[in-house]
C-alpha cells in the first residue's frame, strides 16, 4: 500500500526534515522515497510524452516535491493508520495526501467481516469436531460393551477401562488438527499459484502465510483438548462403571 505526501513549495528544509523524520519513525512504514519536483517532471514526461508540449507552455514546473511512502501490508488492518496519515497531513510543510481513504476504510471493514466469519466458522467447526469425536467414542463404547463388562468382572479399575477411549479421542483430535494444518499449508502454497493473477489488488491485502510454530502447536493443543473433552463427555454419559 502506498501513500504519497505532497510537500508545499514554500516548505523549508527544517520542515521537510521534520516530515521525513516523522514518517521514518512510524512502525507502519516499510520504505520511504523522496521525489523532487524535477524527478516528478521527468516521470510525467516519460509516462505521457504526447503532453510534453503542453507542459512546456506552462513555463514552470507544476509538480510539487513529495514523499512516496510504502506502508506495511498489516497497516490495512489497523485503525491507527488513518491517525498516522492525518498526523503527517497536518504537519507544517505538507500540502496534500494522495490516498483513497474510503477505499482503505472499506478494506478494513471487509477485513473485520472476514475475520468475524472466520471466527464464526471456526467455532462451528470446533463444536462439530467435539460432537464427532464424542460420537465416535460412544459407538466404540457400545461396540466394546462385552469386553468392558468382562474387564469390570475381573477387577479392572475405572482408569484401566477408560484410558484407551480417552487416548483414542486425543489421537483423533491430534490427527484432525495435524491434517488441517497440512491442508492449510498446501492451500497457502497453491492458492496464490493458481489464483494469484486473478486476485489483482486483493493480493496486496490478503497476506497468504503459513502459521507460526507456536500457532501450529496451539492448534495441536486445541485438538488434544477437543479430543479429550469429546471422549470424556461420551464416557461420562455412556460408560457407567
Amino acid at each position: 500500500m502506498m501513500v504519497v505526501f505532497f510537500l508545499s513549495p514554500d516548505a523549508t528544509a527544517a520542515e521537510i526534515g521534520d516530515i521525513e523524520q516523522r514518517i521514518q519513525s512510524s512502525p507502519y512504514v516499510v520504505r520511504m522515497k523522496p521525489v523532487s519536483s524535477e524527478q516528478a517532471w521527468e516521470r510525467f514526461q516519460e509516462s505521457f510524452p504526447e503532453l510534453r508540449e503542453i507542459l512546456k507552455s506552462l513555463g514552470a514546473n507544476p509538480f510539487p516535491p513529495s514523499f512516496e511512502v510504502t506502508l506495511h501490508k498489516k497497516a490495512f488492518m489497523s485503525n491507527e493508520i488513518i491517525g498516522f496519515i492525518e498526523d503527517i497531513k497536518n504537519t507544517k510543510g505538507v500540502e496534500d495526501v494522495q490516498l483513497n481513504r474510503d477505499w482503505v476504510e472499506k478494506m478494513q471493514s471487509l477485513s473485520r467481516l472476514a475475520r468475524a466469519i472466520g471466527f464464526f466458522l471456526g467455532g462451528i467447526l470446533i463444536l462439530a469436531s467435539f460432537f464427532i469425536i464424542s460420537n465416535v467414542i460412544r459407538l466404540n463404547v457400545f461396540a466394546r460393551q462385552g469386553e468392558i463388562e468382562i474387564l469390570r468382572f475381573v477387577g479392572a479399575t475405572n482408569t484401566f477401562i477408560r484410558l484407551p477411549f480417552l487416548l483414542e479421542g486425543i489421537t483423533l483430535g491430534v490427527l484432525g488438527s495435524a491434517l488441517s494444518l497440512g491442508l492449510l499449508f498446501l492451500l497457502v502454497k497453491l492458492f496464490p499459484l493458481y489464483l494469484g493473477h486473478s486476485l489483482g489488488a486483493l493480493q496486496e491485502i490478503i497476506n497468504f502465510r503459513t502459521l507460526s510454530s507456536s500457532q501450529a502447536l496451539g492448534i495441536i493443543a486445541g485438538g488434544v483438548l477437543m479430543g479429550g473433552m469429546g471422549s470424556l463427555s461420551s464416557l461420562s454419559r455412556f460408560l457407567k462403571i
Partner: protein
Amino acid sequence: MIELYHISKQYQEGQWALLDINLHVMKGDFWFITGPSGSGKSTLLKIIFREILPTRGQIIVDGINILRLPDHQIYKLRRTMGIVFQDFRLLFHKRVFNNVAIGLHVIGVPIKEIRRRVFSALRLVNLHQKMWEYPSHLSYGEQQRVAIARAVVNEPRILLADEPTGNLDPELAAEIMSVFKEINKRGTSVIICSHDKELIRHFGDKILFLFKGKIIGKEVLPSSRR
C-alpha cells in the same frame, strides 16, 4: 469368609426377589444354591459380587462390609473372586490365551508370568493344547472350560458360578463339575447356582434351597461323603 445377614432384594414394590437370606460360607466350602427359575439364585450371586445392592441386610467378605465399599473400589473385591457365567461371556475376537489372560493384564502381571499362569489354568481345565485357538473353533463344553480358566487364573479366594452347566449334556456337566471340585481342593471357596438335581446329588456338599426368594432348606452332607 462370606457372611450374609438378613439379605433382601426388592426389584419392584411388593415383589421380593430375595427375603431375609442368612448364609455363612467358610474357606474351602463348596456350596450349591438351588431352586426353580425365579427363586433368586442369580440375584444372590449378583449381590455377592456387588453387581447389584440388596434392599436390606449386610454382607461381609473377608471382614469387609462390601455394601460400604465405594464404587471406585469395587475392583478390589472383584480381584478376590472368579465369576463364571452360564453364557460364558468370552471375547470371540480374541484367542483362548487372551481371553484367559485378561484378568492378569488388569492387575499388571508381567507377560512372562501371564504366560505361565494362563498355561497352568488351561492345563487345569485340560485345554492347554488349544491355547491359540479362537473360542468360535471350540465346542460348547470347551468354551465353558475357557470361562472357568479365566475365572481361576488369578487364583481367587472365591469362585462364583451361575448355572455353569445349564446348556451342557450330563457327561460334559460332570466333567465341568470335576474341574470345580479340583479348584475347590486347592482352597478356593466355590458357590454354584444350579437347578440340576442330578448334578447336586452327585457333587453337592452344602446345599441351599431357595424358593420365591426365601430359604426353604439347608443341607450339609457329612464330611465322609465329601
